């Protein structure tokens, strides 16, 4: 069991205790997340890194309330989402947590603009035009607003997916490879923005990434292996992250 606390005094945006999720049954069973205890402080950009198949995506799905754990608990702020009924959980997904899927999952019938404001429409929230414009400017998708997802490149779709996750100003943002399809310049802009959001708006961001440079924007890096937190890097730099990953690879070998 791994328990990581970042500062005794910190308030936590996300917490988990004994979080477990397995797939398959019998000999074919694979434990993707294995009794994970986590405390993600508010206002911190956290990166989750680890080898493919280590359970990173499953972890962020569980933390966002998009999947049900086999065991364990998850809190968003003070609310235990693993004990919530579907209706309450829907409210958490719509208003408190924002999620960026690895495959974007944009609705193909809708324009980029409609995709971005969709969470507002679904949750009966009013649109803040200045915040919408700020997001569009930051992500550089002003020209794409009236285009359908299938008319956009992968990178453009990813920016729209990020804007959609941020439009409700969620307290927690979870993102699965949010810069995977972006060029270096765009990645840097997005990551800088996420870091600023954390620092100035008190937003908490958890992102899965394979890119040590992206991870270096984070306030802390969790190293994940075999469904468990295998280590962490505080105040990460690309070299420190690589060193952590190398160490992780050494342990695995």
């Amino acid at each position, binding site marked *: 069991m791994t328990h990581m606390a970042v500062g005794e005094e910190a308030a936590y945006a996300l917490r988990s205790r004994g979080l477990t999720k397995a797939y398959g049954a019998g000999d074919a069973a694979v434990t993707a997340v294995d009794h994970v205890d986590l405390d993600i402080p508010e206002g911190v950009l956290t990166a989750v890194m680890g080898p493919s198949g280590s359970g990173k995506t499953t972890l962020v799905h569980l933390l966002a309330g998009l999947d049900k754990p086999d065991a364990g608990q998850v809190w968003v702020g003070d609310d235990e989402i693993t004990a919530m009924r579907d209706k309450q959980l829907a409210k958490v997904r*719509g208003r408190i947590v924002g999620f960026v899927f690895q495959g974007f999952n944009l609705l193909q*019938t809708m324009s980029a603009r409609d995709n971005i404001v969709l969470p507002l429409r*679904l949750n009966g929230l009013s649109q803040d035009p200045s915040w919408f414009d700020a997001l569009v400017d930051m992500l550089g998708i002003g020209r794409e607003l009236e285009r359908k*997802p*299938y008319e956009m490149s992968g990178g453009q779709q990813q920016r729209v997916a990020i804007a959609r996750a941020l439009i409700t100003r969620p307290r927690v943002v979870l993102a699965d490879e949010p810069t995977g399809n972006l060029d270096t310049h765009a990645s840097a802009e997005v990551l800088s923005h996420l870091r600023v959001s954390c620092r100035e708006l008190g937003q908490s961001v958890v992102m899965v990434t394979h890119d040590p440079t992206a991870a270096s924007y984070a306030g802390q890096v969790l190293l994940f292996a075999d469904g468990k937190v295998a280590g962490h890097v505080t105040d990460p730099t690309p070299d420190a992250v690589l060193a952590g990953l190398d160490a992780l690879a050494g342990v695995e070998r």
Partner: protein
Amino acid sequence: MRWVPAGLFGVAAFLGGLAFGAVPLESLGRDELASMTAYTVLLAAYGGVLVLLPASALAWVFHWIGLRATAAEWHAMIALGADRRTIVREASRDGLRRAAIWAGVGAIAGFTLGLVLPYYRPAGVSLGLEPSLYALAGLLLTYLVTVTAAWIVAWLAARSLTGARAAGSSWDDAGAGTPREPGRGVGRVLAFQFVVVGLSGGIMVADRLFGIGPETVYSAGDVWIINSLAVTGFICIISGLALAARAIAALTRALALRLARGLERGATKGGRAIATSAQIAADGLAHRSGARSLAIGAMGAVMVITALSSTTSSLDDARGEISGRLALEYTVASTDWWDDMTAPSGAVNEPLDTAVVEALLSDPRVTAVPYGVIRDDSWQWTEELPDSSVTEHTTRSTVLVVDPSDLEVRSSGGARPLGLQDGTATSTPAALTWESGTFGGGRDDLYVLPNSNTTPMVTRTWAEAAYGTVPLVGVMLWPADSGDIAGAPQAGLNSGVIEIAVTDDEIALLDEVVADAGAAGLPAMSVSTNEIYGFLTYGSAFVGLLTVLAMPLAVTGLILTVTLAVASVKDRRRDYATLAALGAAPRALRLAPALESGLTVIAATVVGVPLGTALGLAVSHPTLLAEGAPLDPVETTWGFIWELAHASWALPALVAGLALLASVAAAAVLGMFMSRGTPVEELRTAEKEGVR
């Protein structure tokens, strides 16, 4: 899902078996055999096209839906070096194997039902438990053709799913991460269809209005023109149907979308869950995926076909009743014109005593219609009997001359619903031999209504313009209290067959009335109790098929609608999961699939029923589409109004109601199951099912 295509071919084989089982040819006489053989050939030909083609098209689509999850696997195998032909061969064998079972079961079940159930047996044909060799050969042919079609369809589906184009695209028109410019190819096809329909339709309309084809064939050139017109007509119908299918799908989608948007706006005040559901449903309807387009088009098409079938069937019944009421059962006349083969042709010029006519018309015990008679020249013909002996016959055509309004005492509207007007003649199929005389083919100004199926009659206005004065020579009589003819129209394949007979009591009454009118010594004629004549009144084999297959079509359409509604909802599994992840309320997500299906069925009904009814009115109209028939605006419009008043809405209403209930229930259950899973589980299921 993989059994659905085989099931469709099973249904097709069932219908084929039913058609051949219903015609035990060896139990019929030689003449009947000839006519029934022709009918069977027609039924098989039309049936083959009308049943097998749509079944094949649908089966192909269901193969697509069923195999799309496997398609990703196939592409991976091909990428790793597997032989595409082997994959296609195995998939088509699988389709063949399933279809062989279902087509066999369907064909035998249909054939047995056709043999046993009186519903499907032509009038006068006794229980046919001993099928003829013709019928057995037909059964075998049905099976072989159906299974071959199934194999071809499975092969085509597997081939298209393993093709290079399929590898790069998704089932959705718009695949994620595959930017492309949609609509260009579709636009070109659509433009081509418009041109084809416009050209061929224009030629057919010109032929209808101006008769550009030759009346009689004199040369190879005439044959060429007639054949060209037939081919043009076929092209017009096929391309028109393809265009109509597109139009129906587009109209249904647009209306359903409008309804959903309207509901979304209207429900905003009432409840956010409903508004959100309507919003999700509207997004779904705007989502042009293959399954959804097919579902929407199919629902519209089902309603069109149901309304068309119901309209033709009900109008056929209504006209059959009028035909029966106007058929001559008893008459008294100044001369026995019905037996006289020696009198000169033209108008019979032996007027009936006016006092007799007046007396009969004013007698409350009878319904009376006075008439004149015109006669054709007589001609001889020979009949070859089964024992190879030959019998000589002498026949001449006679036609009654009536004032159309006089017939209204017997039937509301008289014979107008049958198409009787100046320049047309009602007719029984037997009287079609006029073609060899002067009334039909010999006169350009007379159109014989081939399906009016009653005593041959023309209007006095036309007859006197053509033949000069035509005096009243007789009166048709029916007992006043005879609400209907003795033999009621029958159900099933025999719904158009009318048995006409007057009872001995009725004949006695009519004899008494004639005697009281002072005409006891005049020739009289009645149709005896044992004499039955009646004919299939269907306007064409197409209408007949629609009538006979009304219920099977409705049931098949219903199953199709529900299946596609479910497929359509499944096709949005990824969207629903995404919406759940973005915070859509579970109640809204549960309600949305039912709403989407329900709105589609409602839109399909609103679009399909008027279209199908309009088509039914047009094909049932006695003169509108008949080449050479008069196109009088007043009579044509009157015919439409009469048809509209007599078209039945029961079947479309029933099918729409059941389709609404069944598809909404199926979608609601599916929606409930889908909302039970977490967004991640649903995304994973969508991935497994090949939904992009």
